[in-house]
């Protein structure tokens, strides 16, 4: 079992997300005495009689002033069974981009709903974002269960509705778990609650400690974006020429035949080097230096690959999550950062838009605004080696960058990473039924 789980939280404003995260930290004794003292003091200053656990995590002045979480924050806690990296992401609509940030590396998403309100638009939107970004597993924490008198029927209704939505988005049923909790009172977060005798599943922490974690794809085709060429030119290493990078997918062994993309040059791996000595093989996640049998022209930005080679192309389809206030319009000139290569690009076509507010899609919209998700066609100035995001979360991902000010405009995913749904072509209605949200995954024209 993996000793580390990376998770991201998401939920609407006031669902109690900061309190839940605070509760997790508090009940796992991950909070040290001086930090706790500070929270007790600050709570008392605000006239509260019990400590406000959200103050443990809302780190910015304006967050504490407004009582909301503005920006994604990373928390670290551990139990004897596992370590956790938690991306605590804000629920407010204007900060949905941070949900994308947190989800890009998460192995599990924890969504929160208020038991009194049940599954709302924002819940469906966040589940869709987590599905889009390939987060393999979901937990729905049905919070404030104390405020519905620990009612089993209420919980079951919400759980059923959520499962239906999540499976429609492509999550297997066993990848989705619902848990009734009260972050404020501590029910079923770390400690099992005696007020929900009808619930036989795990507490949130028990689930986090035992949920299977998908390993890095060691058996996928080998992918190695070249970051940096190491050429010491010292007396000791006069002819050393190594290609430094982190294995993005698969495994490489000494003697393997490789192809350098986009040039298509071929060679074999002569040595896999590290500062701690050479390796026989290196797998996804490891930072190493490759030495090749031939003296080839290889630079930062190239991709060393073997096995089923990625497509080398200057035109591809992609899904983008637009993260900037400046809208995307077809014909926009941007930069695309894929792996270690940054190229000029034009978004030639905006094929459809998933409207985050209406949870519906529009064909050929004129533009894509902040927090909107759409399918686009991209043309690049030079060919790039791309995999489909659904096959590889690393080599299928790219950033869209504003060439003029350098800001990050969008998260890009090569291909259409969401499954197609039978019988749902497009949907223009406003409503907020679960059915409408399926339009997100409708195929383009």
């Amino acid at each position, binding site marked *: 079992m993996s000793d580390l789980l990376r998770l991201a939280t998401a939920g609407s404003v006031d669902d109690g997300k900061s309190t839940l995260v605070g509760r997790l930290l508090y009940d796992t004794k991950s909070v040290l005495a001086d930090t706790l003292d500070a929270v007790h003091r600050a709570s008392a200053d605000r006239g509260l009689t019990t400590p406000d656990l959200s103050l443990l995590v809302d*780190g910015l002045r304006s967050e504490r002033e407004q009582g909301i979480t503005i920006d994604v924050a990373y928390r*670290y806690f551990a139990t004897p069974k596992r370590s956790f990296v938690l991306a605590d992401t804000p629920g407010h609509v204007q900060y949905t981009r941070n949900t994308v940030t947190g989800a890009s590396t998460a192995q599990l998403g924890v969504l929160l709903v208020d038991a009194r309100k049940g599954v709302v638009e924002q819940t469906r939107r966040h589940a869709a974002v987590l599905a889009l970004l390939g987060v393999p597993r979901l937990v729905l924490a049905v919070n404030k269960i104390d405020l519905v008198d620990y009612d089993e029927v209420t919980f079951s209704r919400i759980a059923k509705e959520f499962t239906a939505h999540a499976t429609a988005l492509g999550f297997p049923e066993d990848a989705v778990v619902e848990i009734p909790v009260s972050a404020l009172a501590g029910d079923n977060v770390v400690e099992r609650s005696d007020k929900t005798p009808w619930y036989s599943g795990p507490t949130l922490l028990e689930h986090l400690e035992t949920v299977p974690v998908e390993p890095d794809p060691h058996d996928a085709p080998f992918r190695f974006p070249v970051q940096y060429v190491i050429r010491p030119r010292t007396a*000791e290493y006069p002819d050393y020429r190594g290609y430094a990078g*982190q294995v993005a997918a698969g495994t490489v062994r000494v003697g393997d035949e490789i192809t350098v993309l986009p040039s298509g040059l071929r060679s074999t791996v002569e040595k896999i080097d590290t500062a701690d000595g050479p390796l026989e093989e290196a797998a996804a996640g490891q930072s190493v230096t490759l030495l090749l049998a031939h003296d080839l022209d290889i630079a930062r930005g190239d991709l060393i690959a073997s096995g089923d080679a990625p497509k080398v192309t200057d035109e591809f389809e992609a899904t983008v999550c637009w993260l900037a206030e400046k809208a995307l319009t077809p014909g926009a000139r941007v930069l695309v*950062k894929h792996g270690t290569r940054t190229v000029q690009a034009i978004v030639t076509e905006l094929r459809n838009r998933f409207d985050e507010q209406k949870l519906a899609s529009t064909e050929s919209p004129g533009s894509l605004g902040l927090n909107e998700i759409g399918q686009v066609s991209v043309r690049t100035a030079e060919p790039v080696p791309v995999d489909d995001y659904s096959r590889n979360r690393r080599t299928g991902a790219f950033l869209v960058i504003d060439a003029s000010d350098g800001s*990050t405009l969008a998260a890009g995913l090569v291909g259409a990473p969401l499954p197609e749904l039978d019988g749902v072509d497009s949907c223009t209605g406003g409503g907020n039924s679960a059915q409408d949200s399926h339009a997100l995954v409708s195929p383009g024209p």
Partner: protein
Amino acid sequence: MSVGTALDTLGRLESEAIHIFREVAGEFDRPVILFSGGKDSTLLLHLAVKAFWPAPVPFPLLHVDTGHNFQEVIDFRDRTVEKYNLRLEVASVQDYIDDGRLQERPDGTRNPLQTVPLLDAITTHKFDAVFGGGRRDEERARAKERIFSLRNAFGQWEPRRQRPELWNLYNGRHRPGEHVRVFPLSNWTELDVWHYIAREGIELPSIYYAHQREVYLRDGMWLAEGPWGGPREGEQLVSKTVRYRTVGDGSCTGAVESDAADIEAVIAEVAASRLTERGATRADDRLSEAAMEDRKREGYF
């Protein structure tokens, strides 16, 4: 040797930090590593050496010297620079005080005074990427920090306008005058740092381990005698067995009473501690509820 299994936590953290160092080397013109001789920056340098081996580290070091240092740490700093044959730039707070560009604070602490010399050094040397040893587990405001953190021409951090950071694709684009603070240790905890120091056998300044020292009590912290003024009237020097959990400006970095004389003992002590390293020994973080955030907005690390 063959490694076919998944990386353990330290292996994963090491690999991530090496990846970050190489990204910066590949994309920036003039990076620099902030180096104080403390444990985090020593670890940072160790990882940089690994990232570019067998070539030398392609960056110089920058020390913002408050003038209130522990001699053991300065000696260690100079030894380390020589060992790796690196270039060290020093930005001196004392120089700024001597020629009137900065004024000594009434409380005598010089930590907040580092910001101006730091930003001046960045401007003078045209550094465009500045590595720091900051970790997100240190403090609430730090938990909000990106690995690549854009600073404007005034060195300011604007938490509401941070770039989204996706996958391991770091965006280092910046305009002239702006720079990027880079935090390769973002995802490490204090215990990870100590476990890694033990695993790699990294040498640290001796004051991290238990030793006998003359100290006096001020605001609940054991401060050492030094050029920063102390003990004042009514403060009594006593000899104690202590060590330091962080190494910063001597005027505001307290010692903790400890018998942990070697790395195993330190790890056991840190694991059992009920106090954060900053809460235990850093007076400057106690100034207000948002002390760290406010300093970061001004350009501090």
